[in-house]
């Protein structure tokens, strides 16, 4: 059975999106990217360090033709700042996909819902393919879809925490009501969280820290890839209902007495 995954008309082979931050070194990062078999990589935009112009720029190590790039607007605290970053990104000619990420609180890094909605609406008008990172609020996710988000990306828990899915009930409602892909972004800790999200019916997973800071990033990337596939198959297969009491798997007649 075909199980196509498309965002904004682009067909993706993998439902796993991988971040490029926090790896110990470029070798670890490349090994993780290879192992993940991802099609989509995320980046951030920052000022060049003018005192160290040869400082490692992320794209030096990555084959630009192989991936769909999803740069983010991290560092933006308002819609206006996010729009500015998106325009800078587009000027590279690398991608017109943009992950709107607007965090106004450094402790929680929770997305600012109002600014996120404003930025999404504006960037859609400017022709970007917009994938907003958002809190797991079903009404907000609907609004993001209505203003033209190509996919909506609720967090499982705060960025970098590895706490997993804090509110599976909200996530289920978001999935039920959505007409665009729903991607869980942020808070994933291990393969278990990925399977849980995929079994709920999300269309994809975006993660970074769980792989980058694992003891063996490449091995964890493999685990995440397999978890995405296992969770997706399990979701499509349709799980059994949970029962309170046992139910014998060989029937209750014809016992040897």
């Amino acid at each position, binding site marked *: 059975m075909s199980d196509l995954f498309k965002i904004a008309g682009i067909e993706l082979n993998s439902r796993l999106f991988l971040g490029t931050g926090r790896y110990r070194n470029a070798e670890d990062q490349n090994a993780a990217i290879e192992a993940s078999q991802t099609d989509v990589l995320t980046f951030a935009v920052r*000022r*060049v360090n003018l005192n160290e112009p040869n400082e490692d720029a*992320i794209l030096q190590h990555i084959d630009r033709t192989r991936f769909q790039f999803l740069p983010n607007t991290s560092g933006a605290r308002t819609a206006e700042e996010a729009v500015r970053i998106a325009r*800078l990104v587009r000027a590279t000619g690398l991608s017109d996909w943009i992950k709107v990420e607007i965090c106004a609180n450094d402790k929680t890094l929770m997305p600012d819902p109002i600014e996120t909605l404003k930025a999404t609406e504006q960037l859609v008008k400017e022709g970007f393919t917009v994938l907003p990172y958002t809190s797991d609020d079903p009404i907000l996710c609907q609004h993001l879809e209505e203003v033209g988000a190509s996919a909506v990306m609720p967090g499982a828990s705060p960025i970098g925490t590895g706490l997993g899915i804090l509110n599976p009930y909200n996530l289920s409602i978001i999935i039920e009501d959505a007409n665009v892909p729903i991607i869980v972004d942020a808070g994933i800790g291990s393969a278990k969280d990925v399977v849980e999200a995929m079994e709920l019916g999300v269309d994809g997973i975006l993660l970074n820290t769980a792989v980058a800071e694992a003891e063996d990033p490449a091995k964890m990337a493999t685990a995440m890839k397999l978890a995405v596939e296992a969770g997706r198959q399990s979701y499509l297969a349709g799980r059994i209902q949970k029962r309170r009491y046992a139910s014998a798997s060989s029937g209750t007649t014809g016992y040897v007495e």
Partner: protein
Amino acid sequence: MKLIVNGDEQVLENVKVLSDLVTVYKLDDKLVVAEVDGQVIDRSEWGGFSISEGMTIELVHFVGGG
């Protein structure tokens, strides 16, 4: 000539157009985006884009992120 580049005041000589500035910082072959006074300037226009006293310039690139 005084310019604000990436938030710091810089005093630079022999910078007439934006591409001169990019060369000063040895960024010619890098994937860098330039913004002058809030406007993104396309790389194809760098050679003809005049730089003048007091301009605020941002030179940005991609870094790792999630």
